């Protein structure tokens, strides 16, 4: 606002205590030659632009289209995901769990916020929230209903608590009415939440 003396364009905005502290630490580590500004920029850029749920969506779409790939994926997910070029930090060891009409899988990390970065990017705030971490292991169906997913009583629920370095990706069910779709079109249907296991994939509207 132009009448705000602090935030007018003549003065940079006042930083929050956290922003100020982060700025101070970054500056000091740079001064000591322990960091590089361009390396920090590069990491931020990679996670803002390159690595995200589209990677996981490609894995899912491939598994839907290619039964032999799906078998490899369920047997050795790390290797099968690497076939598509994805892997590395926080995805060194991967397991894919398949949702079926009878079994629904959902992933969490109660102790911190472990999440398969190479295929899903960095986790959303709700995945890291205390509420999700506290509740999903205790009342998964209630939490899933809050996400709009009301599972029938007959469906078994499996909650995967990522307590080690094994990272989990849910292979969601392929929605009906997609038989004619290409692998790329299918990938565009696959949502981040369906690969965490808090959503299913809706049939595309015609």
């Amino acid at each position: 606002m132009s009448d705000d003396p602090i935030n007018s364009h003549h003065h940079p905005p006042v930083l929050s205590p956290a922003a100020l502290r982060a700025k101070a630490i970054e500056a000091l580590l740079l001064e000591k030659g322990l960091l590089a500004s361009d390396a920090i920029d590069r990491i931020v850029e990679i996670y803002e632009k390159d690595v995200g749920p589209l990677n996981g969506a490609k894995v899912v779409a491939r598994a839907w289209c290619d039964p032999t790939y799906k078998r490899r994926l369920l047997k050795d997910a790390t290797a099968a995901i690497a076939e598509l070029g994805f892997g590395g930090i926080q995805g060194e060891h991967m397991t894919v769990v398949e949702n079926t009409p009878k079994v629904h899988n959902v992933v969490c990390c109660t102790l911190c916020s472990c999440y398969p970065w190479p295929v899903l990017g960095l986790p959303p705030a709700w995945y890291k929230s205390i509420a999700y971490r506290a509740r999903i292991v205790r009342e998964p169906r209630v939490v899933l209903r809050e996400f709009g997913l009301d599972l029938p009583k007959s469906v078994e629920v499996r909650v995967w608590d990522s307590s080690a370095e094994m990272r989990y990706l849910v292979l969601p069910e392929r929605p009906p009415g997609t038989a004619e779709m290409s692998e790329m079109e299918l990938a565009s249907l696959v949502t981040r939440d369906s690969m965490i296991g808090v959503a299913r994939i809706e049939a595309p509207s015609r």
Partner: protein
Amino acid sequence: MNSVHDIGGTDGFGPVRPELNEPVFHEPWEGRVFAIFAIIGAGHPPVPVDALRHQLERLDPVQYLASSYYERWLAAMENAILEAGTLTRDEIDAKIQQFAADPSLAIPRREDPALAEGIPSVLRAGQPVTRQIRQKPRFAVGDHVMTRNLNPHGHTRLPRYARGKRGVIAHHHGAHVFPDTNAHGLGENPQHLYSVRISARELWGDGAEANESILIDLWESYLEKDDRAAKSSAQRTSSGMKQAPSKSRLQSRKVSPRAASKARKKKPR
């Protein structure tokens, strides 16, 4: 350690609130902190992720709960830097004063193109934690196990809600670096790691749904054989089914012939 980070099963935190079209970082400083943390983790020598997680869980519990995710990372990073002696509290405070007094002051840049160009391959390589060990896995898929009631003051990945519970081995993941020692610089001590399936009723009582379970990754030393389940399955075996070669028969091959003949004279109960 038993602190507030170990929060699985706790009530009172309200609904989960997803945010539509959430940005990867809500403010620029979050991205900077994330990146600095990653560079420290992959540095020379690398700081194991176990040690970084232990920094997070050692935050003051009130601060932990009251902070946003990246505020926690920032505080843990600062503590790690102070403990390593890389920076002092006075240096950080003085720099904060300097930036607070003059908000137009930018961080002076320091470029290292070689380091920046190497970032994608460092991220792609990651830090695998599987190791080859001589010990054979103690458990096989389908084995009934009991999680131990361990309460170390240091780092552990056995959450409170899953201690002293009966479960079944669902997967064997090979041997993985053991966080309980690795976080404290006490060595990798790799152990076999298993996904253990524990029913919701075992965890939360009869009020829980029947067709729900938790699958949690636990190291071998967190587990013991579930003798009660083993006994009941042995009883089922003796009452009809054909018996597999018993463990005592296999063991008797190792003892001396004299001891073995003595053992044979003993009447079975």
